[in-house]
């Protein structure tokens, strides 16, 4: 039983690696599918904006409200904007936004490609003189890699605004003072690594969604499984990549 699990794990890891290598091979070869890439950026990026804004605002608000009592105990209430901004920008917003995108975008890609596969639309594309890997996979992976960092920057801003409102629920901090404290606290060492890792999150979400959808089988049941496992694996990968990138940032003393 354990051997079978290990075999499945190793064979799936090998397949994903081959899929990744194929992505890099196909991505740099013409013909380039710019119009499809733009369409995917629109669906993956623009269509996720409302969800990202709402969750980021709530994150900022809730983290601020939850952090206040602890700081009050130490008489460090004035540190609230500093503490909240660092924890939001460095860790909470990138990871939570990536997880939300893994749920929304990863499952969407997995289900869409899975149903295209079982209804022979991918074969039809190939017969119509189109390389389906380039048209469907490369464009989606590039779109997630580019759009998730943009969504995270947007979410950072909105969550800090939520933090500002949260600070003012039980205290009085002026707009200027709040943002002064935030910008005095945050350095490039906080912002750049946290945005850099979101490119990896985006790549992982796109890659796993596409891999699961493109290799979907067993009819409609397989489509459901593809969508489900795309979310599970990409969410797990987000945490693993976060752990690795935090270690690298620490080793390079960028903190």
């Amino acid at each position, binding site marked *: 039983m354990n051997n079978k699990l290990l075999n499945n794990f190793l064979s799936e890891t090998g397949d994903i690696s081959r899929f990744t290598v194929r992505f890099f091979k196909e991505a740099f070869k013409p013909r380039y599918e710019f119009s499809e890439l733009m369409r995917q950026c629109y669906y993956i990026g623009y269509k996720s904006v409302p969800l990202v804004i709402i969750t980021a605002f709530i994150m900022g608000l809730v983290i601020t409200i939850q952090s206040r009592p602890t700081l009050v105990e130490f008489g460090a209430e004035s540190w609230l904007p500093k503490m909240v901004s660092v924890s939001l920008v460095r860790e909470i917003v990138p990871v939570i936004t990536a997880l939300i995108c893994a749920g929304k975008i990863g499952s969407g890609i997995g289900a869409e490609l899975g149903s*295209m596969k079982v209804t022979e639309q991918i074969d039809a594309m190939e017969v119509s003189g189109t390389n389906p890997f380039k048209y469907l996979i490369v464009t989606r992976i590039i779109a997630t890699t580019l759009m998730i960092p943009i969504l995270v920057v947007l979410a950072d801003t909105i969550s800090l605004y939520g933090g500002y409102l949260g600070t003012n629920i039980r205290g009085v901090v002026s707009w200027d003072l709040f943002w002064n404290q935030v910008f005095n606290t945050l350095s490039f060492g906080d912002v750049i690594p946290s945005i850099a890792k979101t490119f990896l999150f985006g790549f992982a979400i796109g890659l796993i969604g596409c891999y699961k959808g493109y290799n979907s089988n067993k009819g409609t049941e397989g489509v459901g499984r593809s969508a489900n496992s795309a979310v599970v694996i990409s969410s797990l990968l987000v945490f693993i990549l976060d752990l690795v990138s935090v270690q690298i940032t620490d080793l390079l003393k960028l903190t």
Partner: protein
Amino acid sequence: MITEPDIYPQKEPVIDEPVIRLMNVYKSFGNNHVLKDISLDLNKGENLVVLGKSGSGKSVLIKCIIGLIKPDKGIVKVLGKNIPDMNQNELDTIRTKVGFLFQSNALYDSMTVRENLEFPLRRHGIKFSKEEVNAKVIEALTNVGLSHTVDLSPSELSGGMKKRIALARTLILEPEIILYDEPTAGLDPITGTEISNLMRELAIKYKTSSIIISHDMNCVKITSDRIALLLDGQCNIQGNYEGLKNSGDVKIKPFFE
């Protein structure tokens, strides 16, 4: 009760010149030997029906012809060129001359009917002006009697309409050969008969040669010039509809009962 036309549209005579030639083709999936030494010709202007039980490898056979599946062994010549030896560019070129109607229609859900029909025109690298593309789309839809659906999406169409649109998309590049994978599967008998008649009419209009995978005997009767029976991975039994129907062979009889 299905009403059949008294006289089916008359075709031009078949020319004894193979446009598709399969020689000693083998294909296995693991231990499942699907095609075992298949040899088969499709002549110019001919409608060849490949008849066989579900899972007998009929779809695999035509997917080998279009290059979606690579045979393990054997020669698959389409318009004189061996498909397994071709690179991607050569395959794309030959696919402009070979249409494929998928069993599930394979219409792109995210596109309108117009975009579905424009897709092969734009993707095959043949330069068409906007007016030419539009004219071709309208002509293809008029051929299948659905010009009013041009701005609808596939989810708004019935099963029969989807099949007609898929047929229009297959014909839009005016291919010399059309491969039909179960064209009447999932349709009611009346719509199935309409699609079969349409296939025959369009074959005459565009002078195409076709391989039709089917086990719908009404479709087989309407469309076939010749029938090849795919049994146990081989196509050894061939003949016309009446000839096979009247043969007492126990392998053939169940299909006509």
